[in-house]
């Protein structure tokens, strides 16, 4: 028996958890639920449009970033006279939608929820089950959660199914605990007083006993069915197949993509399809985390995405908001490399790959291909290495009415038990998309001139025609909602383990999730209040501040600080903080420019504030579902909880004896691994452009060089045109192309050597005392490493794009303020 003093705390804790569950669903008042039509399931119709934030891009490519061989470095041949020529090459490929549905599916959600969606489960006679069978009947969620928690979820479930009669499960029947009297949710509501359950015993609606409802009343009505009610529903979402392309024009572009230097260009083609089960998988995994993970270890954010995406107003905002559109996840090539999500998906897509052998460009008037039909050598295909995701799950056939644009296709039917829209005959579909170069028309040069748009051009004897060739690669990309979120919530191993103990290859049940948050490294859940790095510096500042106040010295008197012990500690700390340590940036800020001090107290405060702001942003970014822009080795990632690492951390630290940990050299630290993609424009892993020192060269009079350091922006004199700059912007950050062009127009009128003084005595001056420099009129480091316009123009662009990346890719910080005034005033 607990002492009385603990009971209020328990009640409060319970209420807090219940409140948390509500965030899984949109809330709605249903005490007076309006009449509803009988269930009329319309599976696969009216799918929810996912906002870009929940879409994860899964590239169809191997570890070398090469797309399938049929579309990799294929030579396109064009014949025509010198001059511009429109090039368009049709490409056909086939998708078996009955396989696509299995990417993620009931495997995970049914495991989490104990197969509550299965017909047998809904009709089982559970009154006669032995305890061991009851245990099997319930999923992890039902076993782990107490009745209060489960009741709250089921009340929401019933409400949602009642209000959404088009969902397939609205017509599902449940038998009572004895396996008798099958009823739909619709029937239960009609038969049990035409009211839906709620959690308030003071209303006339039925209320589960755990919330104070009358036990007898409950058992005679909803209670007969209650333990069979699932805790979450299924929803249908749109997913997409899109394409990126790169041709070798100007030489080596495809290889640059393979090296991670370029992100290939989008093709203007999109195929929309519908996926079931993902939402349910996401919610069940999220519920499971919340049910059994201590609250202090739970993600604050992971289920926010679900909430947002269920809100119509929010969705509408997504459509119209420039800011959100600016967040289009411009996934680059990290997504398919070394992460469990993309690895497993790639294997599944590899399965589909068997159905994708026909890429067959046909001749056009001026364009033709010498491409031979690809071989179907299975060894060259991406293969599924493990089981667990093979086979079929529930799926939706291809629905032409969901396509934004006309798309050419032919489909054949396939009849099986998994097809949800059983009247739809478009199951195996062949699509015809069109490859066009980004800059169409291409140009065939006169004889003797080097082609810009083609790899080679040779005249055809006796004619005015040329035969030009260019290599093309196309990357199919599957934009799938929720995958990151699901992986935020679950652990899953598809790699072989080398150690024969719990969690090893023999132990792991592939295809089943674990619960990552149990042992997720602390770093993920660090916050401003508890972070030791932040606290230490704040404490030191505070101690020095108090000492100044007590002593009455002038805080701007830098040398006086040395006389105060607490301030001397701060001074010593700052001096010793250089290098790669956690306070390196604080030290760098203080001693930038080689100034050795002494510094005033306000200098310390300024640098500390800058450091703390960045540190806090960093912490926030590391929460699940957020992008971490600053991880050194993987610049462009969406943090998903370090799944495999987390698992190993558990095994090693929780299950290994200390002696074994020492023997194996096991550390407690879990390096932050991550997967999927982030909202970025710079391809991940891309090194900054080379740096070049300023020169005195005015590039044939192009620049006045009216600045203190000379030609800093174009020392190689290769900023030859606005077009040249525009192409670079389009390559580096095509999503924000218009905004960068607008900013450079206003800030510098496209002059990489533009300079504005920071001297306030001048009539026209920059707010940054170091002045405003270059194309985007940035500073000299006042706001961090990317706040540098005083560099060569490629680096100016790189810095600006990365600076915006730090802001979240939306040009404004958390307070809605931009670094650039032209964003603030709405001009750009």
């Amino acid at each position, binding site marked *: 028996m607990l002492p009385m003093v603990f009971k209020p705390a328990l009640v409060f804790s319970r209420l807090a958890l219940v409140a948390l569950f509500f965030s899984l669903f949109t809330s709605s008042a249903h005490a007076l639920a309006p009449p509803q039509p009988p269930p009329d399931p319309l599976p696969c119709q009216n799918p929810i449009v996912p906002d870009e934030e929940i879409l994860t891009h899964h590239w169809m490519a191997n570890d070398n970033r090469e797309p399938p061989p049929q579309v990799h470095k294929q030579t396109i041949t064009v014949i025509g006279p010198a001059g511009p020529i429109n090039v368009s090459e049709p490409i056909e490929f086939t998708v078996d939608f009955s396989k696509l549905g299995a990417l993620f599916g009931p495997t995970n959600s049914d495991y989490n929820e104990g197969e509550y969606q299965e017909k047998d489960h809904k009709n089982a006679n559970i009154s006669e089950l032995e305890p061991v069978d009851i245990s099997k009947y319930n999923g992890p969620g039902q076993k782990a959660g107490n009745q209060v928690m489960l009741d709250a979820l089921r009340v929401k479930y019933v409400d949602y199914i009642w209000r959404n009669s088009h969902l397939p499960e609205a017509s599902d029947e449940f038998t009572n605990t004895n396996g008798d009297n099958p009823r739909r949710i619709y029937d239960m509501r009609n038969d049990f007083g035409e009211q839906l359950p709620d959690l308030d015993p003071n209303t006339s609606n039925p209320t589960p006993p755990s919330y104070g409802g009358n036990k007898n009343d409950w058992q005679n009505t909803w209670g007969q069915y209650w333990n069979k009610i699932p805790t979450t529903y299924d929803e249908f979402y749109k997913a997409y197949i899109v394409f990126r392309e790169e041709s070798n024009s100007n030489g080596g572009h495809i290889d640059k993509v393979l090296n991670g230097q370029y992100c290939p260009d989008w093709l203007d083609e999109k195929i929309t399809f519908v996926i079931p089960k993902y939402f349910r998988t996401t919610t069940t995994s999220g519920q499971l985390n919340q049910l059994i993970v201590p609250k202090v270890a739970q993600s604050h954010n992971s289920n926010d995405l679900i909430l947002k995406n269920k809100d119509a107003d929010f969705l509408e905002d997504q459509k119209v908001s420039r800011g959100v559109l600016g967040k289009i996840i411009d996934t680059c090539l990290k997504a398919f490399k070394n992460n469990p999500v993309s690895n497993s998906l790639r294997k599944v897509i590899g399965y589909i790959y068997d159905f994708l052998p026909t890429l067959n460009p046909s001749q056009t008037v001026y364009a033709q291909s010498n491409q031979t039909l690809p071989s179907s050598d299975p060894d060259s295909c991406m293969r599924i290495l493990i089981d667990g995701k093979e086979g079929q799950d529930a799926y939706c056939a291809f629905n032409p009415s969901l396509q934004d644009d006309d798309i050419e296709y032919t489909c054949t039917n396939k009849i099986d038990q998994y097809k949800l829209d059983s009247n739809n005959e478009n199951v195996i579909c062949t699509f015809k998309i069109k490859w066009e170069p980004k800059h169409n028309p291409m140009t065939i040069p006169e004889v003797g001139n080097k082609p810009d748009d083609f790899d080679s051009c040779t005249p055809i004897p006796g004619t005015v025609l040329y035969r030009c060739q260019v290599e093309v690669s196309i990357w199919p990309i599957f934009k799938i909602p929720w995958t990151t979120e699901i992986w935020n919530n679950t652990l899953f191993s598809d790699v072989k383990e080398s150690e024969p103990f719990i969690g090893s290859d023999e132990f792991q049940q592939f295809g089943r999730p674990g619960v990552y948050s149990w042992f997720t490294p602390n770093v993920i859940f660090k916050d401003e209040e508890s972070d030791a790095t932040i606290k230490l510096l704040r404490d030191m500042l505070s101690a020095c501040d108090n000492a100044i106040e007590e002593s009455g010295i002038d805080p701007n008197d830098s040398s006086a600080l040395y006389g105060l012990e607490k301030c001397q500690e701060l001074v010593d700390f700052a001096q010793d903080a250089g290098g790669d340590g956690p306070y390196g940036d604080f030290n760098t800020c203080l001693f930038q420019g080689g100034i050795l001090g002494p510094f005033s107290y306000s200098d310390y405060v300024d640098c500390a504030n800058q450091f703390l702001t960045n540190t806090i942003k960093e912490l926030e970014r590391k929460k699940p579902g957020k992008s971490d822009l600053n991880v050194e080795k993987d610049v462009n990632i969406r943090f998903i909880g370090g799944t495999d690492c987390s698992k190993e951390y558990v095994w090693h630290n929780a299950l290994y004896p200390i002696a074994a940990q020492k023997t194996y050299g096991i550390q407690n630290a879990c390096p932050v691994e991550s997967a999927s993609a982030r909202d970025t424009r710079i391809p991940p892993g891309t090194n900054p452009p080379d740096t070049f020192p300023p020169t005195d060269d005015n590039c044939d009079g192009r620049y006045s060089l009216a600045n203190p350091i000379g030609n800093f922006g174009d020392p190689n004199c290769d900023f030859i*045109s606005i*077009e040249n700059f525009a*192409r670079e912007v389009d390559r580096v950050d095509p999503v924000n192309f218009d905004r960068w*062009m607008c900013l450079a*127009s206003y800030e510098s*009128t496209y*002059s990489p050597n533009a300079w504005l003084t920071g001297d306030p005595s001048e009539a*026209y001056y920059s707010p940054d005392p170091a002045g405003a420099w270059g194309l985007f009129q940035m500073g000299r480091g006042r706001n961090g490493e990317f706040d540098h316009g005083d560099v060569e123009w490629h680096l100016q662009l790189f810095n600006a794009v990365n600076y915006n990346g730090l802001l979240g890719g939306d040009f404004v910080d958390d307070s809605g303020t931009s670094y650039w005034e032209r964003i603030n005033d*709405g001009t*750009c």
Partner: protein
Amino acid sequence: MRLDNIKRFIPVFAILFVLIIIVLIYSIFSSSNKPSTEFQGEPVKTKTIPPREDVQKLPQETKSIRGKIIESQIDEIGGDIILYKDDSMDIKYIPTPDIFFVSIHKEPVNEAKIKAQGWFLNFGLEQTELCTLPVRFLLDFELKKTNPNFNPLPSGCSL
């Protein structure tokens, strides 16, 4: 007319004379400040750098004139299509953003702007069509400092 009568009308003549002078002075000064292509109607809403796809939405006739303007190319530098050039300004078409830029190099900047607009209008465009063509004006950076309120949009356009 008797002298008395004439004297009686002197104040009236004086007032009329003053009024005429005021009107004349006003019209002279106001016309000198007004560009010849001053747009009198409702300003056309546009963006500084409109999305590239907006050009596809232009009327066919405008597109046709647009094509003729680009065909009037006199030079090409690094992909910039040079259409007109003199000491005070140059007009160029930039293919990737699909936009016409007028770079102004000398004072008086407003005269150059008017002149450039006239150059476009001579192809048969209406003033408002310059907003969506789109035409934009750039001042050399040093001129920008002395003309901080310079409007980069053609007359008759607004953001």
